[in-house]
């Protein structure tokens, strides 16, 4: 009996890995077919529009709120730090760079992950456990084509848009603080704000939400479609989808930031 442990050890580990490896494989497969379906008929335009409305318009209030308050808070915090160098006049620069590069994409994506990764996972999950996904296949539609691709496209279109809005509202928040409490003129604030931004910043500020959008929608769909175990299972998938998409946002954010820092190369030194 004891002799067999040496043999069982590695296979036991392999068994442990089998689940996650199979899941990753399944996820990549879903990603592949979701993207392939973008170019293949039938196109469910109605579903895309419906999802855009749901994801984009539905998330607008919360994105505006997140943008405004983070801009305002950044202005307050940074002006204190800048004051020690006598550089309060550059508050706009710091606010706009942090917003466009990091805070705008991250916060908006978190909001959308909380709202929509969960929404997608629970909707598809309940369809799965009530056999509606099976019914779809039985009645001649590919669930990936009908459900996943529209959500992927809608999220990818709306999240960058929401981010731009959040960035702008954040700058307005920063301006309000600068104007009311820091004795900066509007002109001073806005000119430093615009001048701070380079193409590099705008590019990463748009690439990030696009990549996050792909992740959020696909993770939501993935967990939704693999739901088992009734209504309890739907709850589980929903939680897993939100947790996984937020984790992925952190990891991808680091990767993309690193990529841009590396691309900007000499400019840093």
């Amino acid at each position, binding site marked *: 009996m004891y002799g067999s442990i040496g043999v069982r050890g590695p296979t036991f580990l392999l068994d442990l890995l089998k689940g996650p490896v199979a899941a990753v494989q399944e996820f990549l497969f879903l990603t592949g077919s979701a993207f392939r379906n973008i170019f293949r008929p039938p196109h469910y335009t109605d579903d895309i529009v419906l999802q855009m409305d749901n994801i984009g318009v539905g998330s607008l209030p919360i994105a505006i709120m997140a943008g405004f308050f983070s801009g305002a808070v950044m202005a307050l915090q940074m002006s204190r730090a800048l004051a020690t160098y006598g550089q309060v006049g550059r508050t706009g620069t710091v606010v706009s760079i942090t917003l466009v590069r990091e805070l705008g994409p991250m916060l908006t994506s978190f909001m959308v992950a909380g709202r929509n990764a969960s929404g997608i996972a629970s909707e598809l999950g309940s369809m799965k456990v*009530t056999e509606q996904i099976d*019914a779809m296949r*039985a009645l*001649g539609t590919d669930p990936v084509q009908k459900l996943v691709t529209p959500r992927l496209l809608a999220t990818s279109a709306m999240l960058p848009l929401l981010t731009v809005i959040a960035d702008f509202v954040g700058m307005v928040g920063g301006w309000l603080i600068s104007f009311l409490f820091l004795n900066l003129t509007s002109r001073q604030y806005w000119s430093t704000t615009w001048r701070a931004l380079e193409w590099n910043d705008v590019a990463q500020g748009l690439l990030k939400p696009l990549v996050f959008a792909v992740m959020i929608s696909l993770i939501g769909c993935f967990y939704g479609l693999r739901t088992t175990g009734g209504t309890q299972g739907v709850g589980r998938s929903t939680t897993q989808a939100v947790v996984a998409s937020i984790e992925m946002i952190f990891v991808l954010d680091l990767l993309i930031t690193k990529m841009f820092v590396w691309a900007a190369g000499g400019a840093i030194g």
Partner: protein
Amino acid sequence: MPREAPVPVLRFENVTVAFDDVTALVEVSFEAFEGESRVITGAAGSGKTTLLKAALGLIQPQSGRVYAFGRDLGAMREEELFDIRSKMGMLFQESALFDSLTIEENVAYPLLNQKAIHCAPEEVKPRVVEALDFVELGGTLEKFPSELSGGMRRRAAIARAVVTAPPLILYDSPTAGLDPITAHTIMALLIKERDTARTTTLMVTQRYQDGNLMANFRYNSEQGRLEPARNGARQDLHTVFMVLREGRLVFEGSQESLEASRDSYICKFVKPRA
């Protein structure tokens, strides 16, 4: 009397289906011919739903083959399966109506989405209305599934299964969880569909009286109700009973041989509990 060797509409060849840790079907083999009715019973979890889903190609077996209309489902891609599936109607156990769509849109769904069904846009509405009238739900077109009772949902799902007039229909527990009156209404609908459209029928059920109705009654279109089939007509209704036990097909045969069985498991499905 068969004139030539008939091709089975549905054929299972040593089909084994396993999920992660449970084996849902074990080496199941049978053939269903055109015009036949098959009544499938078995305890909860014995693999009845799995059998129907394998027949539709929704579940691929680990081993063995499923043929529908002479074609091997395992050798087909999903797009090709859509063509085969358009010849099969399926009533899912929990109805599986799309709850974001109205009843009208639900029933129209197969007409609009099955490529092999060529239905002109102006014909969709009349056919949907006809199918809903068939199940006596004419007034519910604009309603959502959540606004209907369980029995009405079941009937709407039957309308969706029969709207394309498929030659093979699979019913998963059509009467489960319904009161005796509604259950009888539903059975009358299934028999009406079978007798008016001459469809091959597979019906999963837990209730022996459903199978008994299938085997011994026919639909009288003049009077609009079920009547016992007399000797000659009874030969016409070729009904085969199948009993599943833990994924194995433990009985296949006529009602007489089912009733004559001494097996204690099989007997439980024959004698309806008081």
